[in-house]
């Protein structure tokens, strides 16, 4: 199974406090690792098994909607995580 590193762009984030709430809640999604949201670049990154990526993205979308009603989430980039030797 390939581990993927996914970056999502969140538009409509206007409160840094909400951003950190989205980060906290998203990091509790089962299967999502190293979840990290940066308010300044409006990007959220996480690592997950390839087969779980879609589920996690939609979950993050749901969390963002809940916390910041105007937020929209879209895929920015996704690539296979290279294991470091």
């Amino acid at each position: 199974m390939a581990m993927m590193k996914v970056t999502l762009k969140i538009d409509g984030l206007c409160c840094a406090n909400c951003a950190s709430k989205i980060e906290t809640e998203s990091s509790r999604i089962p299967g999502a690792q190293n979840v990290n949201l940066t308010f300044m670049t409006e990007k959220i990154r996480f690592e997950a098994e390839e087969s779980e990526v879609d589920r996690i993205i939609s979950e993050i979308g749901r969390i963002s909607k809940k916390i910041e009603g105007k937020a929209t989430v879209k895929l920015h980039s996704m690539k296979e995580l290279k294991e470091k030797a």
Partner: protein
Amino acid sequence: MVSMENTSKRIVAGIVLFAIGAVMHFVLHSDWQLQLLVFGIGYIVVGYDVVLSAVRNIGHGQVFDENFLMTVATIGAFILGEFPEGMAVMLFFQIGEWFEHLAVRRTRRSISDLMDIQPQYANLVEGDSVERVDPEDVSVDDVIEVRPGERIPLDGIVIEGSTSVDTKALTGESVPRDLVPGDAVISGTVNLTSVVRVRVTHDFEDSTVSKVLELVEESVSRKARMERFITRFARWYTPLVVFSALLVAVVPVLLGQDPSVWVYRALTFLVVSCPCALVISVPLAYFCGIGASSKMGILVKGGNYLEALSRCDTMVFDKTGTLTEGRFEVVSVDPVGYSVEELLETAARVESVSNHPIARSITDSFKGPNAGVDSAEEVPGKGMRAMVDGREVLVGNHRLMADSGITADEVEHPGTVVHVARDGAYMGCISLSDVLKGDSTTLVRELKDKGVRRTVMLSGDDRRIGEDVASRVGIDEARCELLPGDKMRILEEIMEDSDGTVAFVGDGMNDAPSLARADIGIAMGGLGSDAAIEAADVVVMDDSPGKIAVAMDISRRTRSIVIQNIVFALGVKFIILIAAVLGYANMWVAVFGDVGVAVLAILNSMRCLNTRMYRR
């Protein structure tokens, strides 16, 4: 984000309605119904979206949401009959938010300008034609053409034409670099003078420009301790203030005080309960600090490293490639009974077959034609033994001479001394010194000024060379004659001795393990070295050690701005809370304590982007 133009129109409309209402309230003393009508319409125009979000968020169980708190505070004010305040708080809240967005947006833009090194296209050469393609579609060994003014899209080697390139976006260095065929070109730099053709050596994904961009993007995800602290703090702060507000509203009333006075004070609490000033401005400061560093040609891989740099109290340097250029220069040629030329030529002919840096320096310093040797062998750790025009020549250290029973001169030279003998007769010696990098000599003094207590230099070279360099640079301790494994062990010992943060500075080629092991690994000359970019936490893109001092400056300044913001924001909020309980602060003051403070803190953080004071 709701369009800012729309918001600004609503704010203007709100100000007009508020002015009308204020005249009715303070001058005409109109009926309260009429006032409620004007302020109420104004309130809805200005703040309907806040109220809507609040309602929606309660549905999601988000109670301590900023929108909710503002809604409760303002509607509470209306219920208490304080119409002007109810509307004013909402109006100022929106104005403050508007400024906040503006500031955040401006910072985002200036940071993306800073990172604007992404090449948009490459001119791929195919036969006689040149085609404009996406840099990602170019493969290794393809030939691309780069015209003046264009950004070099991929790493490669110049095969045709010569030019100079501007490396400023990567190194912060404004002096252009000259390129001739055979030179390596780095993607992300800008071609200045003429057309060159370049054979591509790396795919776009592996090219310097992609690596650097990825690194900067990722750097923001490594958060400083201070950032984590603020996030945790924010989680407690809002509930705490809201709970206190509840106490303020209920307890005095139970004790028989006037409910309207205390409810008003409690509402004031709610207005200052959002920690946004800190939650935005602290990460922003680190972000801007990292941005400023990149502008100076220093890549910092995370807020945590930027923060740690300001606490660095011990700095361990690798000598070669870090403090010195890894190049020696001949400082004197002292023949005994021969001419300078003859001694130098003999040595240069023998050394021409060796790759040792000292041998190369001697070879380079002889300007005449070099006829080389008949045969040569290396004597490990001692020098070279060679046949030159049928005569046996020895070139090497004191021990090599001693082995053949030759008495060499004792030379008092702090660097390296190479002795030469021919057919058993001593010819003289050549003295060399390690060439220091340009600003090595001032670096250590600058670091001491910035709080680095201890500096150590590690070197595999001879003690005399090492101590010579250490004393010229001003380093406290020199540990010399080390084997590769020793460096790591000594670094670990130093880290154990130190209570503070230990940084290791190396060239990234041979020092990857030490760079990774130290609290902060700083790699020099990252431009063109994947290993350095990979292994280090901080990468100085060009070769100047002085950039380490610059990085520390940026780190210390960022830290002090963060502290200013924390003290200022919490201080103001705390004072307002106390004043509110005592009845000295009204909602007008409180709304300043919320959005006013946030805007000021953001503006303060943006100062971290300014790099003017680091240029020298």
